[in-house]
């Protein structure tokens, strides 16, 4: 196959590749944002000093961090249909759709990782600052809102950026439940053209470009939030 023919093939499939990229970005984007919202109470509970508050989020995090995403995806997409109760429930129209299953699984998965990042960040806030806030007469709640969380967000931000990239790469398994993300489109193209080497390379390049863009974007964000400035002390 000549270079010209390869180029023609690439151009012919470009719209589908773009669509697949958008599906991937959409899934990852929603998952990491909703995951962050879910992770805040989980992370706070994990940083608690009481074991009974820690226990439930700990088991959740242990399960989701200890098993592969692919397995969790199959557990939700194929597994839930085993129960008559689920199939009769009002949620079934959503739980039947691969898109919602993938989104649900990815969100729950990433929430567990983000919660651990948040816990680490909260515990990394210098105790002197919390004591200073309390000494100024702030209530626990105020100290959390004005001192601990703003500091923890800056401390945890680089790790959150890493988590987004890890999620982007982990999302490549959703094609197994028939979703047309980047990998899903690549699989379709491969089964039509048999140009495995070429299109795997294309997929790799797409992921690589997104990763590099994200890395750059997060570095800008860290500069803007002065993450380095707060860390230098």
């Amino acid at each position, binding site marked *: 196959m000549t270079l010209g023919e390869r180029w023609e093939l690439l151009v012919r499939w470009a719209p589908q590749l773009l669509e697949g990229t958008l599906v991937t970005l959409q899934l990852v984007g929603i998952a990491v944002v909703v995951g962050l919202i879910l992770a805040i109470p989980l992370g706070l509970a994990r940083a608690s000093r009481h074991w009974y508050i820690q226990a439930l989020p700990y088991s959740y995090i242990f399960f989701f961090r200890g098993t592969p995403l692919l397995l969790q995806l199959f557990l939700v997409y194929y597994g839930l249909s085993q129960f008559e109760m689920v199939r009769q429930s009002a949620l079934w129209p959503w739980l039947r759709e691969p898109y919602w299953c993938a989104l649900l699984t990815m969100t729950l998965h990433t929430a567990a990782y983000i919660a651990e990042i948040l816990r680490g960040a909260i515990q990394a806030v210098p105790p002197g600052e919390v004591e200073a806030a309390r000494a100024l007469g702030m209530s626990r709640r105020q100290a959390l809102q004005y001192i601990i969380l703003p500091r923890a967000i800056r401390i945890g931000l680089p790790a959150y950026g890493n988590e987004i990239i890890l999620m982007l790469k982990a999302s490549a398994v959703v094609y197994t439940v028939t979703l047309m993300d980047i990998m899903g489109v690549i699989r379709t193209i491969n089964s039509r053209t048999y140009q495995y080497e070429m299109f795997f390379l294309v*997929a790799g390049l797409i992921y690589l470009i997104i990763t590099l863009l994200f890395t750059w974007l997060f570095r800008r964000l860290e500069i803007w939030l002065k993450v380095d400035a707060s860390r230098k002390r």
Partner: protein
Amino acid sequence: MFDLHGFGPALVEGTWMTIRLSLASVALGLVFGLLGASAKISDNRLLRGCGGFYTSVVRGVPETLWVLMAYFGTVSLMNWIGSYFGNPHLTLSPFVAGTLALALCFGAYATEVFRGALLSIPPGQKEAGQALGLSNARIFWRITLPQLWRVALPGLGNLYLILLKDTALVSLITLDEIMRKAQVAANATKEPFTFYFAAALIYLALTVIIMAALHWFERRANRGFTRTEL
């Protein structure tokens, strides 16, 4: 607890395959990691460039893609190599392809761990070896490597836990490990939840065992050292 419909032994076989795959990948991955770290801290600009290229490319592409590439993407290459040895149908087995792909990914992350650990060893150690007239290879094997483990172990342990979960991806290229055994059983019995949940419990059990083993290794590697406590 569960009714496994006689698929219990199959799951045990799958577990054994997962363990073998993860150990093979980690063995090869450690070699990649050491080579990558040596390249990254070398004085040669070309080698440094290669090391940087390896880590940024491999870490920027999904593990799933590496696994598929190692299996489906190497068919014509292997056929071409095989044709020189009189076997034009030569291909990589799922186990070999999976090991290569997982080792490649493990190695890229391990490169960073080893690089940090190598930089933490005082240069005086190497100079002392040179003063004693040891060859570079011997200095690495006898002086650097034994001290490297202690620093690198926590990072490598985390990577091994990640690798364990990535072995599930090799089910996509039909290797009979836990995930695939669970899939077969789920299809045969029409009880997907039971088997995927059983598989999840196996992964969690393996994680706990590995964590305990790592703890033991770390204690052993840290004999004679005090730990910095805040």
